[in-house]
């Protein structure tokens, strides 16, 4: 995946604003310079569960409370509607339902907090462009492996993971050369930022990784957790949910590459 990325036109910076009550989400102070240097808009979508970000008004309040409106404009992409993106090579999803404002952006910087996740095992770049860009209905569609657009469940674990990779592939294909991925490996809880009461991280921070390939990027993060002397809890979380299957299947459908060259720029 060798391509030229240059932020142009309207630039979206996709983050997770984090559920109210949690505090492991990316700090506005950490991302401020990057977001402002590209004149970016922070973008997010509403959740499909009944938390503090399930409606646009509540979601905006959380974004403000967490300090994101202080550093940039925040756009809730599914504030008005969903649009459908084609899913290349999909066996579960016929389309990917993303927030309709998605189409207003020319370039995307996917800025993800890598951590564990109660359903997916871990969350990184692939999850951020699949579940993260999906509208509330679209999230249900992915979680159910393409069988329903409300609520959760109805799919086997592997079908759910494969659906996530398919939705990610829809976004990556749609944006082509105009999307890059950065994962921050800090506050490495076994729980995600969508959890209002996540477990305390019990391993040390690792670093920041970046790539044009979301599969390679997430795989490198997973490998670093395995290499870490204190990664047992997160490894257990990833393995108990078969999280790596998302990346295996992503590679199978052409979303990215499991092999990577690791370049330390320190």
């Amino acid at each position, binding site marked *: *995946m*060798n*391509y*030229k*990325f*240059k932020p142009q036109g309207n630039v979206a910076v996709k983050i997770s604003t984090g559920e109210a009550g949690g505090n492991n989400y990316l700090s506005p*102070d*950490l*991302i*401020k*310079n*990057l977001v402002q*240097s590209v004149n970016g808009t922070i973008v997010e979508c509403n959740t499909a569960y009944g938390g503090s970000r399930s409606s646009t008004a509540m979601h905006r309040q959380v974004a403000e409370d967490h300090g994101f409106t202080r550093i940039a404009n925040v756009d809730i992409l599914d504030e008005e509607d969903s649009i459908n993106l084609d899913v290349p090579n999909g066996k579960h999803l016929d389309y990917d339902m993303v927030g309709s404002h998605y189409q207003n952006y020319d370039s995307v*910087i996917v800025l993800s907090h890598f951590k564990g996740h109660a359903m997916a095992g871990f969350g990184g770049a692939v999850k951020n462009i699949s579940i993260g860009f999906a509208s509330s209905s679209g999230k249900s569609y992915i979680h159910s492996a393409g069988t329903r657009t409300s609520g959760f469940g109805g799919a086997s674990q592997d079908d759910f993971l494969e659906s996530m990779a398919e939705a990610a592939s829809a976004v990556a294909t749609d944006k082509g050369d105009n999307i*890059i991925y*950065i994962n*921050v*490996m*800090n506050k490495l809880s076994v729980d995600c930022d969508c959890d209002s009461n996540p477990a305390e991280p019990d391993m040390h*921070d*690792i*670093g*920041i*990784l*970046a*790539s*044009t*390939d979301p*599969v*390679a*990027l997430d795989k*490198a993060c997973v490998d670093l957790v395995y290499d870490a002397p204190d990664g047992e809890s997160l490894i257990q979380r990833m393995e108990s949910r078969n999280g790596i299957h998302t990346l295996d299947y992503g590679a199978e459908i052409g979303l*990215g*590459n499991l*092999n*990577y*060259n*690791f*370049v*330390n*720029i*320190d």
Partner: protein
Amino acid sequence: MKKLIIVLVIIAIIIIAIIIIFNLLNNNNKDIASTNTHVNTNVNTANNTDANQLNQEGTNNGDASTVYFTSDISSEGLMKIYIELQIQTTRKCCS
């Protein structure tokens, strides 16, 4: 008879001396060989260490994707890795 015994003793001493000298030389060669082995082991270890370091700092897997890393989790670190990614993607694109 006495002369014969003296000659035999001298011959025996010479033979024993030759054996001792030969053994000493042989042991010395073994030590040298052992030293060489040790040096070679050290060289191999050094090479392996270099290789391991290379794997950590910059593997080369042919057509594999590139993942950049910094341990600097700060605003500056984030900008640094973003710029590095931009430079590299531009270079790959247009070279």
